[in-house]
């Protein structure tokens, strides 16, 4: 009787310890690091896409430098939007 009670309390302590550790270790650190890796490329990718669209449209309409500049600016804005959205998602968690 005494033994089983002892085991129960020990189990409880071990479980709570495990839970605390889990939240600290895998939960937070992993997610933070994953998010950090995410943000950089989000910004760059949108700029690249903007420039590519501008380049293609410029070739279509024959307005060589104008559209690529405009879409570069749009792409930068989209990149900032991407980072903004990702940061918002990070806060929600």
């Amino acid at each position: 009787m005494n033994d089983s009670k002892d085991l129960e309390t020990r189990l409880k302590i071990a479980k709570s310890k495990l839970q605390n550790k889990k939240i600290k270790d895998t939960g937070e650190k992993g997610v933070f690091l994953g998010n950090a890796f995410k943000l950089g490329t989000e910004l760059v990718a949108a700029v690249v896409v903007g420039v590519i669209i501008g380049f293609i449209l410029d070739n279509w309409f024959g307005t060589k430098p104008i559209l690529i500049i405009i879409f570069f600016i749009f792409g930068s804005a989209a990149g900032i939007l991407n980072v903004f959205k990702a940061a918002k998602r990070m806060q929600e968690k």
Partner: protein
Amino acid sequence: MATNPMHQFNVHKIGPEIKIGGIDLSFTNASLFMLFSAILILLFLLFGTKEKKIVPGKIQLISEMLYGFVAKMISDTAGKKAKPYFPFIFSLFIFILFCNMIGMLPYSFTVTSHIIVTLAFAVFIFVGVTILGFAIHGFKYLKIFVPSGVPIVLLPIIMIIEIISYLSRPISLSVRLFANMMAGHTMLKVFGGFVISLGLVAGWLPLTFSIALTGLEILVAFLQAYVFAILTCIYLNDALNLHH
């Protein structure tokens, strides 16, 4: 040959050349390692689920943990509606994870360090999610480009920005995985080259770096597979639930 850090990324043919309709379909070392990781996954999961003990053994425990990990990731990020897509995301995650991890073995080839592989994954996901969004919501899916509460004057500009942001998804998804894997493996090789060229006198310093980097690379290999899978879940969530 061994001193060139980019040599490890060379793709070369194994066996005879196969050409169908002008497209080169030869079996390469990249295909070999993809096949290798697919077989390894199959064996691992088959052994893991063979015995189904109540108190699991090591392999069963790992495969059950993997299942639980991915199931939790999907339900956390994309909700209950995404449950039918579990097999897809699980296979995606575990395939990228195994490709990355097999790449960490010496003399092996890292499949995911080639942009064509990661871009194929990402474009497939992008097209699939877009078709799914249109199939579920019809033309209402275009609402994803129109955030609520924007003045009409600004709407055209915001829409262009949102469309570019949407189109940048496959690029950021693929470039992230490819760049991380390639940069890591190049760095490992460069430090390995330093060990040889500095010799017994000062070679110990790059050797310690090299060991530390190997640990970091294993972390990155896992993390990139995780990020790839979780972003797929987020995109799936956007397509399934359609609210900003």
